[in-house]
């Protein structure tokens, strides 16, 4: 049974469509950024695009993930890491222009969905009592093996004496944004995530959050650097990120500003 020739048209036209070039490529800068920058950096990039007409293409993910991809030739011109170690590591491999700049200090927060049995307390006493009362089934954090915020969450839980008691109840997000999504998915009673995500309007309407003391975990020293691929446009955006206007945006999104 030969199908009629007309049957092939939908498929053929799809294939032809896929050959059309994408919209005219204006100047664009490819940026890899830690997941906790989702809201702050999107805002800064939008104002930069308005002022300079250059497209900023943002990819958000776990810093460790980008640190794996850049040596493999990933086409990023600028890398904003949540942990400066990754920048130093790439710099040692000669993949970056220099050891970059500190741009922000990240803060950790307890994020709770509305109606959570856990009380919003940055010193985690509410978490401890909910756990003791058997009201806590799942707590989401980023994976401590490769996500900076996961390591910070582990340190804070150890400091509160909750790391061991929570074993078997922790759910690991692949990066801190996924941990936040898990925390609010209705399947967990909360999570330890980036303060910069917790206070964004997108999350704040659905949750309550409490800031965890900054000295409960090693500081999340967030460093950025240009890669060897960076062009003049990337350099310009990198400089822009160090201007007071951009620093104000970072601060408004809950980051502390580095003084060194």
């Amino acid at each position, binding site marked *: 049974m030969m199908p009629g020739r007309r049957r092939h048209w939908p498929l053929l036209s799809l294939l032809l469509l896929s050959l059309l070039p994408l919209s005219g490529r204006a100047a664009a800068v490819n940026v890899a950024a830690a997941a906790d920058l989702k809201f702050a950096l999107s805002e800064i990039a939008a104002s930069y695009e308005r002022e300079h007409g250059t497209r900023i293409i943002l990819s958000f993910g776990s810093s460790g993930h980008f640190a794996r991809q850049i040596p493999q030739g990933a086409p990023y011109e600028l890398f904003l890491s949540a942990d400066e170690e990754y920048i130093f590591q790439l710099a040692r491999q000669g993949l970056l222009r220099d050891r970059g700049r500190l741009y922000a200090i990240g803060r950790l927060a307890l994020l709770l969905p509305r109606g959570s049995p856990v009380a919003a307390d940055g010193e985690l006493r509410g978490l401890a009592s909910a756990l003791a009362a058997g009201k806590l089934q799942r707590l989401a954090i980023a994976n401590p*093996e490769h996500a900076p915020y996961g390591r910070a969450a582990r340190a804070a839980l150890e400091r509160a004496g909750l790391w061991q008691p929570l074993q078997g109840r922790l*759910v690991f997000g692949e990066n801190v944004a996924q941990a936040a999504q898990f925390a609010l998915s209705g*399947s967990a009673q909360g999570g330890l995530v980036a303060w910069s995500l917790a206070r964004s309007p997108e999350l704040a309407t659905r949750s309550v959050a409490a800031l965890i003391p900054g000295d409960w975990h090693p500081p999340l020293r967030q460093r950025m650097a240009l890669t060897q691929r960076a062009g003049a446009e990337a350099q310009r955006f990198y400089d822009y990120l160090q201007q007071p206007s951009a620093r104000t945006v970072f601060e408004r999104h809950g980051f502390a500003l580095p003084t060194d």
Partner: protein
Amino acid sequence: MDWQALSLSLQLASATALLLLPPSVWLARLLAWSAWRGRAALEAAILLPLVLPPTVLGYYLLLGLGGASPLGQAYQALTGRMLVFSFDGLLVASLIVNLPFAVQPMQRSFAAIPRELREAAWVSGLSRWQTLLRIELPLAWPGIAAALALSFAHTLGEFGVVLMVGGSLPGETRTIAIAIYDQAQAFNDAAAAGMSALLLALSFVAVILVSRLGRSLPRR
């Protein structure tokens, strides 16, 4: 080598392959032998997981099985466990994803059984059940075995859905594919390489098995 993750993956793969067997046999026979109006739609629905991105499925599962969903809450009331972030949830996801891998080879096998043969069995006094057990299943065996091997092998490599609804819990949802990902992200290359090599070998054996079984499949 994360033996816990490997054993979890093997458990998930076995459970998926075995649990899919009865419904797939029923669906494969239905699609192979009956001509009714809804057939094309049913066939398309079964094939959907082949082309849908695992993230789409993962997203719907998060919504549909989560603690806020009626299904998730009913399950929790029944078992005291949650579906998301649990082995049971991964199993539900695996069953959906692997349905086409189980149904397709069986359907080809059943379609190749001549109708006269089944009619001959019936007029010889065999009941429908006896015909199924003594005539149809033995004849369709290569397709059934291929379906088992395929869905087993495919579950071993399942990644996207598990990443979306698993949460990388050791002994619960950290499958070997997720363990490899975590180790690679953490720059533990030796661990990632060892596990990858093992998975490569396992998958290779499974594929050889499937193709050998496939060769004994009847051609239409």
